[in-house]
């Protein structure tokens, strides 16, 4: 992350030579750099992967709305040069549902953290999956509430420390792919920020998918999760991912629990077809005058 930050600053301070621009300048708000993320944080990598996936999927950026909630990952919307919505805590999926249902020409991407999407916004998550709203949800999971300084999250592994679990987390965490799968998502994958190439491919694939797609991105939080649990810095976390991630495509999502410093199973777990909300709506209301809407 550090290297990227310096590069960004260089671009701002030194007048660039003709034709020399940041390779992602068309998708990033360079006037908002430097960003707020800490050294060793993985959110920047997730954003880079997303920007690459957008190019790879060849989708018109003007037709994409990116919606975030509150938290570290909640800031993503503000750094991406798309129609960006930084909404209230927990509500990006509901906000995105409004955008998509009212204007089906817009592709909605919800980019937010585990606390925002699974704790305070958990209800919207399962219901959007049930309805199969056309939407890609990128859930960056860093196992902790980092923006507020390291409190326990619904994804904090059992026994891990946080400022509000000072004796070790007593609550078992949610298994995000399992919730998504059982609620009806049509595409579910999990990667870490180490698996950039696979993450890009997965995001590009999910972007083209019709229906509710979820990509969980396991990300290091060097400032809080690693520090409080004495796991080293961002690089140590990356090494941990390197040594402990097992890729198992098509694995039953029941088996994807993450324990404290245990093996993390990554891969694409679900890829299926199911009529989306607007498809059913249009089909069933096609007999009513004015009932159906054009889809983009």
């Amino acid at each position, binding site marked *: 992350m550090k290297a990227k930050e310096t590069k960004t600053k260089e671009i701002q301070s030194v007048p660039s030579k003709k034709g020399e621009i940041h390779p992602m300048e068309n998708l990033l708000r360079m006037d908002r750099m430097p960003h707020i993320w800490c050294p060793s944080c993985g959110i920047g990598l997730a954003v880079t992967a997303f920007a690459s996936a957008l190019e790879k999927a060849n989708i018109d950026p*003007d037709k994409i709305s990116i919606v975030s909630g509150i938290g570290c990952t909640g800031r993503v919307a503000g750094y991406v040069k798309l129609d960006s919505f930084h909404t209230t805590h927990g509500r990006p999926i509901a906000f995105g549902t*409004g955008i998509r249902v009212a204007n089906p020409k817009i592709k909605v991407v919800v980019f937010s953290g585990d606390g925002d999407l699974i704790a305070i916004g958990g209800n919207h998550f399962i219901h959007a999956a049930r309805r199969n709203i056309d939407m890609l949800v990128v859930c960056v999971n860093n196992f902790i509430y980092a923006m507020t300084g390291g409190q326990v999250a619904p994804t904090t592994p059992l026994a891990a420390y946080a400022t509000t679990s000072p004796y070790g987390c007593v609550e078992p965490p949610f298994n995000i792919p399992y919730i998504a799968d059982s609620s009806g998502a049509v595409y579910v994958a999990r990667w870490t920020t180490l698996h950039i190439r696979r993450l890009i491919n997965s995001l590009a694939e999910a972007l083209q998918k019709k229906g509710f797609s979820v990509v969980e991105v396991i990300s290091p939080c060097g400032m809080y999760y690693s520090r409080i649990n004495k796991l080293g810095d961002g690089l140590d976390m990356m090494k941990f991912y390197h040594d402990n991630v097992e890729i198992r495509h098509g694995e039953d999502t029941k088996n994807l629990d993450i324990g404290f410093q245990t093996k993390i199973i990554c891969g694409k777990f679900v890829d299926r077809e199911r009529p989306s909300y607007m498809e059913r709506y249009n089909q069933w209301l096609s007999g009513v005058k004015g009932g159906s809407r054009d889809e983009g």
Partner: protein
Amino acid sequence: MKASPTDVLTGIYYIDGDVAAGYGALAAGCKLVAGYPITPSTEAFEAMCRMGPQVGTVFIQMEDEFGSISAVLGAVWSGVKSMTITSGPGYSLMMESIGFGAMLETPFVLLNIQRGGPSTGVPTKTGQADMMQSRWGSHGDYELIAISPDSPQEMFDYTIKAFNLAEKYRCPVMIMSDECVGHMTEKVVIPEADKIEIEPRRFYKGPPEKYLPFSPDPDLVPKIAKAGDGLGLYITGRVHDERGYPVKNEEFKAKYVRRLVDKIRLNKDKIIELKEESTDDADVVVVSYGISSRVAVKGVEIARQKGIKVGALRLVTVWPFPDEKIIDLAKKVKAFVVPEINYGQIVFDVARCCHGQANVVLIPHGGAGVHNPLDISDAIESAAKEDKKIEGVVEFKTRLEKIVFERGLKFKE
């Protein structure tokens, strides 16, 4: 701009206030309704789900009130007009996003069919106890508009007006109705589309690279845009500058939050609608809104038969509050009588504007019913006879309170 003929269900109906408000929203061009069922507002949502698809309005029942108001905000930013419908407990849940909507300067309408509170209260019966919540419910400084209709016909008419005000001032507009008006069935005339005036959205039409989503016009209201137009919108609930980018120093906060407040306060004259009757030579003026103003008509009539000079001031627009009107009347009248179905909310704003120049009498009502017109006429009568100035708000002892507290109430009753 005139309403679209395809949106207006022209005709003469015998419907309740909830349904009339739903038809009003459709006529105003509402293209997405998101709601969550809650008594006594459900009929409005049902009516929009039933009739919406026939005029091209999409409906979605969300998983909770957080979801329904968030979907409404999303829909507005995708370019359509949108409304949500709720009551008491649901209204409380929506507070955060009302502030969010005010901060984003999002034009949307919220229909609150008030019921008895607090908490679950008396879900099936009336109340007017959310009035202060509608003004102060969300955290931080903001201003919005609240309207209080008193009949099914007005529910239709003022829902259209609510949409127009929302578009004009880019702010949330609350329709603060109540169970009585919502469930009252009367004749409602829906005119031809060309008789209905609609405020179009203030879309930005200039060059994309010059667009500043929060740069105000001379009336302090900025032009709006929508997602999907290639403008690269950045919309955040954080205090933001004209580009929409977050700022956190006190100078910027002073500038941008000030405008959120001022765009309503300085346009008050254009926003406020009052219905005033015989206040010119009145000794006592009854200030009321919603269903209470309908009941007050009878009370005023009885008092007049007794020879008392009484005027009536009906607050169609409750927020922003008509300070100047009350200040003006306070110089001329002996007293204000304020019947409301709560233990004192709007009455305190009346007292604030009086500056002790006139007495202020509250006729309270705990809810689950409406005032007895005889209480209103008695309150008018005693206020007219009162010669000394009384500081603060005087509470009138109603017949209901006398029965309950003097005779006592047994559980089986």
